[in-house]
């Protein structure tokens, strides 16, 4: 496999990745060499060296597809193919994607660019690509059967259109879409404004990622493509926490985050410590007068949201989907609630039959993160990822915004854990407890109207 870096170094071995395909070399002659990426790391922004200049984006745990200029036309080459995506260290999924990864590489162009995209199909079935949100000729919209013939396996088709309006877009198949999207076929598209735009600000850091969801049976590798709602792997760019890189910023950087949702449910994306404004959707930039401050924005199915804020506050700030199950990795959805259930004696009895059995869930699910017990292969625990103060007890759609005073511009590497200044952290109260003020009429021993038995973890278990 060849990384984008090799491409820039002019390595001729790039074609090696294609050689194994069933696509004939002759038929590929004259096409831009497809660039293949095997690493799931967040790649540094791809500074444009040809074509119109722009300020590139950073794709979270992803990369931007290089292009070649051909008589003023930007030529890209996408290869649809089966890939192995590392969703987190120790957890690999067998997906379909583009150019070695799922999601595929981000395509960055500038408003007004003429774009020619070669799409080579190395999947076992036909495909097509729909350019979600673009203004283009009807025959380029990519709906197989409606606008074009589906691209047969082994064939290369060409899409060509002008990137008319600036904004945040995505691409995905529109042929056997249910399967191909469930298998991870999708990618990001950013059209940068050609000139200063009244509703589009210049930013210091511009991040983008897609929301996607999979149903991978614990211990297996391939997502269950028939799943409709009961997914167990909720991802940013097909990665789950702790496999998702942090978004880093220098203090007071203006940060833009672009999020697209290709799952089958909405995701309230929530940022800690800062307020942001939704500055754009897939329909274009939001007029300034229509923006309002938020800390959570709901990204509905098939939508894109562009949020912007000033990274004014130092620290490691959580950034996640607010559906709490979406910040978990794979887990059973029919597991009985064991909260408060007394396990004494029964445990011994069970242990005599199942020696490895351990009580879990009696006090809550945090046991899960603490116990570190062996799991099925190719699975990561549902609550995982350690912070400086212990387990973060999060998985799935979770990462952090890391704001540092000294993060150099253009440096996207993880600065490590934030050192909180003395006296700025929650602490244990050890002083005397104040007697709460009561109403004079309040009876101290009166029985409540409804008796509710609650087992509290304070030792009063004799009920």
């Amino acid at each position, binding site marked *: 496999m060849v990384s984008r870096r090799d491409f820039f170094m002019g390595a001729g071995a790039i074609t090696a990745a294609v050689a194994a395909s069933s696509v004939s070399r002759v038929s590929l002659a004259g096409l831009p060499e497809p660039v293949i990426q095997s690493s799931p790391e967040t790649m540094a922004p791809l500074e444009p060296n040809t074509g119109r200049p722009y300020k590139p984006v950073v794709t979270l745990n992803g990369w931007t597809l290089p292009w070649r200029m051909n008589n003023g036309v930007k030529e890209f080459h996408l290869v649809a193919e089966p890939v192995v995506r590392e969703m987190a260290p120790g957890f690999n999924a067998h997906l379909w994607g583009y150019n070695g990864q799922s999601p595929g590489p981000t395509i960055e162009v500038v408003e007004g660019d003429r774009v020619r995209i070669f799409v080579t199909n190395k999947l076992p079935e036909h495909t097509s690509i729909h350019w979600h949100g673009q203004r283009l000729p009807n025959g380029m919209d990519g709906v197989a059967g409606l606008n074009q013939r589906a691209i047969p396996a082994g064939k290369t088709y060409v899409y060509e259109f002008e990137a008319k309006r600036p904004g945040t877009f995505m691409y995905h198949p529109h042929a056997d879409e249910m399967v191909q999207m469930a298998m991870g076929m999708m990618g990001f598209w950013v059209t940068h404004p050609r000139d200063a735009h009244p509703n589009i600000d210049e930013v210091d850091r511009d991040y983008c990622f897609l929301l996607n969801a999979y149903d991978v049976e*614990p*211990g297996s590798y391939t997502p269950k493509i028939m799943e409709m709602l009961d997914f167990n792997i909720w991802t940013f760019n097909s990665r789950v926490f702790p496999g998702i890189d942090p978004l880093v910023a220098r203090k007071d950087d203006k940060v833009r985050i672009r999020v697209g949702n290709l799952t089958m449910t909405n995701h309230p994306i929530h940022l800690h410590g800062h307020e942001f404004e939704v500055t754009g959707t897939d329909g274009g930039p939001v007029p300034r007068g229509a923006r309002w401050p938020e800390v959570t924005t709901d990204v509905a199915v098939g939508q894109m949201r562009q949020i912007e804020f000033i990274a004014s506050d130092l620290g490691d700030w959580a950034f996640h989907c607010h559906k709490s199950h979406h910040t978990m990795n794979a887990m059973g959805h029919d597991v009985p609630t064991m909260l408060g259930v007394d396990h004494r004696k029964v445990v011994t*009895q069970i242990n005599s*039959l*199942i020696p490895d059995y351990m009580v879990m869930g009696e006090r809550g699910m945090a046991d899960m993160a603490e116990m570190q*017990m062996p799991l099925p292969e190719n699975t990561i625990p549902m609550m995982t990822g350690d912070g400086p103060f212990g387990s973060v007890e999060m998985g799935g759609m979770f990462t952090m915004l890391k704001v540092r005073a000294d993060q150099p511009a253009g440096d996207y590497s993880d600065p490590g854990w934030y050192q909180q200044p003395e006296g700025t952290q929650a602490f244990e109260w050890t002083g005397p407890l104040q007697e709460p003020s009561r109403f004079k009429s309040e009876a101290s021993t009166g029985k409540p109207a409804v008796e509710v038995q609650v087992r509290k973890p304070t030792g009063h278990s004799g009920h």
Partner: protein
Amino acid sequence: MNKTNTALARLGSTGVLLLTLAGCAGLAPQSSLEQVQQQSAELTGQDSLHWATEQDQPPVVRERIAELLAEPLALESAVEIALMNNPGLQARLFDLGIADAQRVQASRLPNPGFSIGRMTRGSEVEWERGLHLNLGSLIALPLTRRIADGQNAQVQREVSLSVMRLATDTRIAWYRAVAAQQSLAYSEQVLQAADAGAEMAHRMAAVGNYSALQKAREQSFYAEAALSHLQARQEQVASHERLVRLLGLWGEQTNFTLPERLPDVPAEPLDQPDIEQQAMASRLDVQAAQQGAERLATNLKLGKATRFINVLELGISNNSSNEEPVQRGYEITVELPLFDWSGARMAGNEARYMQQLQRTAEVAINARSQVRESYQAYRTAWDVAAHYRDEIVPLRKRISEENMLLYNGMFIGVFELLADAREQISTVNRYLQAQSDFWVAQSELDLVRFGPVTPSEANSASTTPASPAGGH
């Protein structure tokens, strides 16, 4: 006078000869027992046959049994006890004595007859004295003795078969009893798992996490497990008692223990392509049928030989009268084959002989078929047990391990884990049954080399004690 004297002397010498002939047959039941011991040892592997000639067991036997029962009862110890102690077998052994006595009886001379008559004619008083001997049976004596010998051998063979059948039944009962005991232990484990589930559900309902329906569902598992447990206990008791009966035990003796588990199924099955031929040589019923035919043939010869002298009577008469000189003489009575030329009898004998020949053929064909069937049953039982051992049980174990991992990851809950444990235990239990079936098939295959076995009969695990059913 002289003439008669000579005749008498001749008769006398014939009598001495006959007496000598008859005299060499003596009662020897012990040697019959030894024969049986020899014949059955190949299967039983025991030389513990003895004759309970007294009402009470000899102390040696009693001590040996006590010694064997003190330890967990091993398979061959059970066979040893059964052979020493099964009262049905003891009763059967007396058939040897009876047959031996009949054999001796058959070789004895027919008793001579004596007649005396007194007749008066006027003043004359006449005494008639006669001594007569059935010459026909005398001539037939060597033949009848051979027949009796053959009968004795047949009884020995039948008793041997009874011994072997008892040994086999004892082994089968032992395997069943050990398996039932192991099964009971497994059912206890299942019960425990179900109990844990029911208790857990109860506690979950108590803190409000489970509905009455969910709780009832878990409790119903427990209720059903309890039922299976009862059945397992019943089977354990029944199989233990079956063994007790075969061992002929009572009172304190019945409190023996069994080993905890069945022996492992051998890694490879016996491959016996020539088992049919072997069996034809060793099958006692085939031998018996053949000898039966031979005996009938002898019988037929005898019939032919005595055809005309069937009632040949030699008599000496001594008639004395107070008025006449003593008359001496002999008389020979021969039945004139005027009306009965023994044709019907001969035809009957021939028919019986032919019948026996057909029966022998049937026995041989059945024996071959039974051997093949038993071998097939043995192979299938091995295949099934090996399949459990090599495929099903390891897979079940693997499933349980994977389920444990799923539980660890909170993909499944404790109830699924318990249900899986129950499933795993009952799979192991089914393996145990397959193991037990294999050993039963093995025991039957051992027996079928010597005598008839109906696999389905023994497989039903309800074999009755090998009391002298006399089989065939």
